[in-house]
């Protein structure tokens, strides 16, 4: 890991790079929102941000603290009721990219955001599915952002909260970038971040991690990427 940027910064930059311009993104709060706005403020200015609170085409100057911040409505092209955002816009097949986080991901991309332990008597009760089950199923591509460790990269999730639909999937971690194998659908390490070894990625995975033959290396965040990202985060902290 380089000394000039944090693992979270690298993850966010790697996620932002997945967005091409004019993409319609369904965004959750936190890292996904940061990544989408970073993309919008750097290489993909015409990215369309859709928040599940019903704001379409929001162009916030600063990062929202909640998914329903007033600024998201004020800068939106349209604000629609919540049933409409899920029915006409997400289920209607209009979302190119959905961002998701999770507590656990398994070998085949199932996500757990519900419980650690047993569902009926959980050790840790997590927030639950929220918009994720339908985002995972309906978006043309799903970008999952999750820190990689044997506790998060598990052979079998404690609860299948969301499962990938027919769209593409990419999993971005603090160690690298994974995609499902086109045949077996098994998550495969396709790219590794600067300063990370394949062994390290395998050690932080709860199954026998497959590595692509043509493993690529992630470029370090550029000065522009880091500059914009830090400005976004500083403005966020100042408001919080």
């Amino acid at each position, binding site marked *: 890991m380089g000394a000039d940027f944090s693992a979270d910064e690298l993850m966010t930059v790697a996620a932002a790079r997945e967005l091409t311009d004019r993409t319609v993104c369904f965004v959750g709060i936190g890292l996904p929102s940061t990544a989408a706005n970073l993309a919008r403020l750097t290489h993909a200015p015409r990215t369309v941000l859709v928040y599940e609170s019903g704001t379409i085409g929001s162009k916030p100057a600063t990062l929202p603290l909640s998914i329903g911040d*007033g600024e998201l409505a004020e800068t939106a092209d349209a604000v629609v009721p919540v049933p409409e955002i899920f029915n006409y816009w997400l289920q209607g097949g209009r979302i190119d990219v959905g961002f998701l986080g999770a507590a656990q991901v398994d070998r085949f991309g199932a996500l757990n955001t519900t419980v650690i332990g047993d569902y009926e008597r*959980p050790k840790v009760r997590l927030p639950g599915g929220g918009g994720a089950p*339908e985002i995972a199923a309906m978006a043309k591509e799903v970008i999952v952002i999750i820190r990689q460790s044997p506790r998060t990269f598990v052979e079998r999730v404690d609860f299948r909260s969301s499962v990938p639909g027919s769209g593409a999937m990419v999993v971005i971690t603090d160690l690298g970038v994974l995609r499902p194998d086109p045949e077996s659908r098994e998550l495969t390490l396709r790219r590794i971040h600067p300063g990370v070894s394949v062994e390290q990625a395998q050690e932080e995975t709860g199954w026998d991690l497959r590595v692509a033959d043509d493993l690529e290396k992630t470029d370090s965040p550029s000065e522009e990427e880091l500059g914009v990202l830090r400005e976004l985060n500083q403005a966020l902290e100042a408001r919080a």
Partner: protein
Amino acid sequence: MAELVSLDEAVRDLVHDGDSVALEGFTHLIPFAAGHEVVRQEKRELTLIRMTPDLIYDQLIGMGCARKLIFSWGGNPGVGSLHRFRDAVENDWPVPLEIEEHSHAGMANRYAAGAAGLPFAVLRGYKGTELMEHSETLAPITCPFTGEELTAVPAIRPDVGIVHAQRADRHGNVQLWGIVGVQKEIVLASARSLVTVEEVVDELEPRPGAIVLPTWVVTAVAEAPHGAHPSYAHDYYDRDNRFYQRWDEVSRDREGFRDWMVEHLGLAAGSWQLAEQDHGR
């Protein structure tokens, strides 16, 4: 026609022990003042319904008002866990909490079906998820034209729907704008409805993005200025983000939480010292 009444009178008249109650407002216009009044009046055995149980549900659950929660995402947005919600689910404190869990799309469609007088709604979704296995409120349904299998969810029709809005006029017509969420759906789906408002005005001037709920679909309107704090009311006040962050600390511990509630809601201390049962595992 909606009656204009005080908040305590509205909650007294409309909310009864054992009722199913939805306090809605998606990230915006969350009816905190109304929720606090439910706590003050010591309502019990409620089935609480809400897509995103927020701090207000953490408070209602922690004060022992709920026996069941119907929801789709139970966290402190941008901060982390709802500790009282977790304590109830994980440790049955202060009382056991039954849960009925859906996705956002499922909840939104359940409300819409309730508003539309339908017994169920249809959506793509839930397929392959474990929610299908843990829920009696999810069922497969087959399209009679294409044979495709989709998911059905039953309508939600709460006994009481409670929302907050920016304004009402003196006839009880309600106006709200900004993120409108599921406010209309929950008012129309509920048998009785209470709308708290920032202010009562003579005339509801039309505004971009505003919706109006006519007085004859609302049961009661109560003035509650700042009634959505610490969430926000578009064009009135901003979200109190620091409050959301502080809640993480306040709510982490049972004693500290109770003390905070007694102090901040001005509760008579005695009535809240429930006999604590050992539900630990």
